[in-house]
């Protein structure tokens, strides 16, 4: 009787152990599949996306940056620029193909906690959002990844500013009083970032929405600073003012450009902002 009991106990124990073994096996599999996901994310390999956006050829040239060394002309090479910003819908397609850029997967070092914050979930645009409005709440890293997956890159600050000199008629309209006034007036319009792209008139090049919807990331936004090595460090606001007064009179009046530069200099690469989006660029001989 006692032996029998012991035998059943043994059987039970075995079943228990085997079941336990299976559990371990399963938990093993789980963790290894999770591991795969992490390593894919780490490698940040991007799945290619197709974009429909038209790219506009920009004929480069020398230009006087709003802020830089006194009267130093900067050479901008010929390049291609998206005619408009990347839209909500396009970014949604991008995160569907590149899940490491979904809101719940993104790493803090690449995007802060407000990344895509108005989206309803990982794959649903904000309520009432126009799918053709520019995507916002995206970090520099996210913008860069998008551009890369589209076979493009972000425009440099000089490229962006070069195109931004144009109004509807001239490639360089900075001397016109109306140029700066028009931009400043746009800044008064509330919630303009919610509007769809390409509803306003294109500029001289045929590029849309340089000013009227959102501010845009540039590849080297972190290059704005005082022009001397300053031991006091920081983004030297004083330097920004000094240099502005050292450039031409037109530029001092170009309050809009000053705002753009000040805004860019306040950014960090993982910041995401309600009215900051991006568009892509490309070298012309590719």
């Amino acid at each position, binding site marked *: 009787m006692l032996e029998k009991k012991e035998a059943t106990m043994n059987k039970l124990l075995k079943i228990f*152990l085997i079941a336990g073994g299976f559990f*371990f096996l399963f938990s093993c599999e789980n963790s290894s599949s999770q591991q795969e996901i992490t390593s894919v994310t780490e490698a940040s390999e991007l799945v290619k996306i197709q974009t429909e956006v038209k790219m506009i050829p920009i004929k480069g040239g020398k230009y006087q940056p709003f802020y830089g060394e006194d009267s130093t002309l900067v050479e901008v090479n010929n390049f291609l620029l998206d005619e408009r910003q990347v839209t909500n819908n396009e970014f949604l397609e991008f995160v569907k193909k590149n899940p490491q850029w979904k809101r719940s997967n993104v790493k803090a070092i690449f995007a802060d906690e407000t990344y895509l914050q108005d989206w309803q979930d990982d794959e649903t645009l904000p309520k009432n959002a126009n799918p053709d409005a520019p995507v916002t709440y995206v970090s520099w890293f996210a913008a860069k990844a998008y551009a890369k997956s589209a076979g493009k890159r972000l425009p440099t600050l000089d490229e962006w500013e070069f195109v931004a000199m144009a109004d509807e008629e001239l490639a360089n309209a900075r001397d016109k009083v109306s140029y700066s006034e028009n931009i400043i007036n746009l800044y008064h319009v509330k919630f303009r970032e919610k509007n769809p792209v390409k509803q306003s008139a294109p500029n001289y090049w045929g590029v849309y929405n340089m000013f009227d919807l959102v501010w845009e990331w540039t590849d*080297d936004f972190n290059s704005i600073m005082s022009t001397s*090595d*300053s*031991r006091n460090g920081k983004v030297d606001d004083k330097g920004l003012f000094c240099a502005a007064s050292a450039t031409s009179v037109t530029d001092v009046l170009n309050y809009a450009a000053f705002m753009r530069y000040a805004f860019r200099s306040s950014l960090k690469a993982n910041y995401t902002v309600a009215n900051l989006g991006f568009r892509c660029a490309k070298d012309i001989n590719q």
Partner: protein
Amino acid sequence: MKQLIILLFFSVLLFSCQDKPAPEEEISADSIFLLDSKWQNEEGKELQLRDLKGKNLVVVLIFTSCQTACPMLVADMQNIYAKIDKKKLKETSLVMVTIDPENDTPEVLKEYAKARNIYGEPWIYLRSDKESTRELANVLAVKYKKISPVVFSHSNIITVFNKNGEMVSQAEGTVNASGIAETVNKL
């Protein structure tokens, strides 16, 4: 006896389970080891930032032809070096990253290091392409701009990372070497 063997078998399973995921888990969401950029050290050896894992890092961005702030930054790094406990020094790398990859080749970096007697462990010099350099600068919130072929303007920031690549502290401008060394000593 049988039970013992089964038990043994499962405990082996258990351990093999625990072993695997461990190294992956250590890279946290805000670690610089998530960056995929490829770098060269002063010996010309290819590496990624995650290869620096396991040591505390004191990181500064410089360029070797710099006549103004960089010599002071390098002096700051030497002061920090001198103030880190000997024992801690073995767990620490002092990393100089060039923002001028065109001119600062591994050879130039090595020469620079040797000339100033800041060569060999725990010093590491890193060089990458322009894109990866700007990415790292962005992670460190360092601003820089090429002013001319030989002059860069840049902010002066020394950053401390722990062994997992998580930013622990940043000092900007005229740094307090003792403070930074103190931070490292406590890691």
